[in-house]
């Protein structure tokens, strides 16, 4: 049994053991084991040459990781909070994402950027944001967000073993929220396919990260009313598993997308547009988005800002009543 945080730590240990080109770098990731302890024990086991405490500069961490990757290493940099990733935005968007394309496949930079994201931890707007949409808008990047320990370990392993850059966003609200059985043997969860958490026939809800458990609560309440909800955990936001989404909508005829980033231009818009483009004739109701608000992330009233099971439940009732 492992928490999501332990699963991340375990994946890092196993991948560093498996491949000596895997290196970890970032602020406080070495001696201190990371501020969330995600890199606990790596420094003692693999030493300062492979677990690097860096100066405090996010653009520096990602830029250096790109140089290491070009040299042939497999860097797994940590950005301490996704809210601090913006100084590195240029290195991620202009450099990391484009290295393969702009060199005709001659240079690759398989950097896996781990970063805790999301609200619900009373972190205010500098420790709570969900910036996934920015990265989904950048060809060359893959964006992965696990929702449970088993997937977290398997997806991180896939990310590290792959040849393409990954923004690996970890829902810190559920880092230690629950434990789950995780296979003892080596396994991977492939980047790409979504996971149908529960089958249903009335409404499809698409979600990821810490929102999956929020949706589960709303679906459980709906089940008491005899309403059958299908929950699809996207796991990978880019590239998106369009087929699973469309198959689900074709079955239920109703779609809700739940995400905690600000609603406007959030990832839900892409899913809604995809459904509208490819399956509008199957729809029985408007596509709804239950999302964060178009405000900076608040401190005291974060429970109002974040999608709450009650808001998801209300959306379910709205699409069923349409």
């Amino acid at each position, binding site marked *: 049994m492992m928490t999501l945080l332990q699963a991340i730590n375990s994946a890092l240990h196993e991948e560093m053991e498996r491949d000596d080109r895997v*290196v970890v770098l970032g602020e406080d990731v070495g001696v201190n084991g990371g501020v969330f302890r995600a890199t606990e024990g790596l420094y003692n086991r693999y030493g300062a*040459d*492979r677990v*690097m405490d*860096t*100066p405090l*500069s996010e*653009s*520096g961490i990602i*830029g*250096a*990781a*790109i*140089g*290491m990757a*070009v*040299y*042939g*290493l497999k860097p797994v940099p940590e950005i301490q909070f996704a809210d601090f990733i913006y*100084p590195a935005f*240029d*290195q991620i968007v*202009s*450099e990391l994402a*484009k*290295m*393969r*394309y*702009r*060199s*005709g*496949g*001659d*240079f*690759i930079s398989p950097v896996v950027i781990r970063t805790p994201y999301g609200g619900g931890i009373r972190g205010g707007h500098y420790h709570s944001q969900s910036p996934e949409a920015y990265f989904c808008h950048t*060809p*060359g990047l*893959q964006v992965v967000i696990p929702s449970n320990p088993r997937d977290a370990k398997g997806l991180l392993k896939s990310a590290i073993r*792959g*040849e*393409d850059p990954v923004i690996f966003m970890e829902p810190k609200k559920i880092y230690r929220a629950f434990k789950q059985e995780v296979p003892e043997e080596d396994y991977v969860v492939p980047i790409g396919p979504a996971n149908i958490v529960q089958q249903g026939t009335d409404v499809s809800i698409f979600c990821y990260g810490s929102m999956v458990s929020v949706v589960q609560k709303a679906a459980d309440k709906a089940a008491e009313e005899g309403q059958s909800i299908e929950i699809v955990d996207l796991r990978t936001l880019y*590239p*998106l598993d*369009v*087929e699973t989404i469309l198959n689900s909508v074709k079955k239920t005829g109703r779609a809700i997308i739940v995400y905690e980033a600000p609603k406007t231009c959030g990832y839900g818009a892409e899913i809604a547009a995809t459904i509208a483009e490819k399956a509008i004739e199957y729809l029985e109701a408007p596509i709804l988005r239950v999302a964060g608000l178009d405000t900076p992330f608040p401190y005291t009233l974060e429970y109002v800002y974040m999608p709450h099971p009650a808001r998801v439940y209300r959306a379910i009732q709205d699409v069923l009543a349409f």
Partner: protein
Amino acid sequence: MTKTQSKQSARALPDGLSAEDLKLMYEAMVMTREYDDRGFKLQRQGRIGFYAGSRGEEACQIGTAFAMEERDWVFSSYRQAGVALHRGVPLQAMMNNLFGNAQDLVEGKQMPVHYSSCHHHFLSISSVIGTQIIQGAGCAIAAKSRGDDCVVLTYFGDGATSSNDFHSGMNFAGAFKAPCIFVLVNNQFAISIPVSKQTAVEVLADKAKAYGMPGIQVDGNDILAVYQATKEAVERGRKGEGPTFLELKTYRAGPHSSSDDPTRYRSQEETDEWLAQDPILRFQAVLKSYDLWDEAYETEVRERIQNQIAAAIKLAESIPQPSWETLFTDVYSYETQVLADQKKGILEHEQGLELTNEGEFPL
């Protein structure tokens, strides 16, 4: 003749360089200059879309390139074509890049002058100023962590010393004592902005002190001085003594790029003063003092190089554009469903539109 020979024997060649080396250096500088001249002309004739040259900066390029080994790495800006050529990137490959043709390594995915060659440890070039500085530091940290005996040369201009990545690159390399040589080609202009507006510091090399590494200002138009300073920096790096910051002081004798008009921001008198310091003319004088240069040699070198370039242009221009399908390659190591769908969309719906390139280059 007898007299000259005795003069040559009286004057010792620079440390570690043979007469053959000096001639190779000279010819590499001439190649860089001729390549540039043709690059600009091709753009003016509308045969390529863009060009950015390095006229006046040949000593900075060839002097540094000569001081490194094959196993070393280059993280350059877009003004180091001479470094790429000297490291063995084929002239034809570079010309194919200028034309963005089907044989271009990156199949026309980048603007001209953004070269790339993994085989020559010459990193794909970005247009974004300074991003390669921290990447070079990262590469050097990686090499050190693996115990490898190589160094990284990262090139940038005076404008880049204001960038975030200059700071983080210098700082990371200093903190990790990485074998990285920061080659600042101070050509005195960032497009129109002179160094005096770029920074309040009088000598850019002084910035090195803040990062705990030696900073050395070198006459960037004196190829032997550039070579010597780089060689020492490379040796320091190999011995595990950490990074070095070299400021090569030179002058951007040409425009920033084919889109720039320098008469808007600097006087011809100023440019003329620097043209008197032309690194090729200065090195010619040095070669002459060793009896390694005369008019016949000059004519032979220029003709040989011009013919090589003309042949490369002729071939590059005859190669067709990349096929439209190449738009979709090398985004990822595999084809995503979205890209497969978009490719199919172009095939089914847009091929009939006969999309053409009007041949206009707005930049």
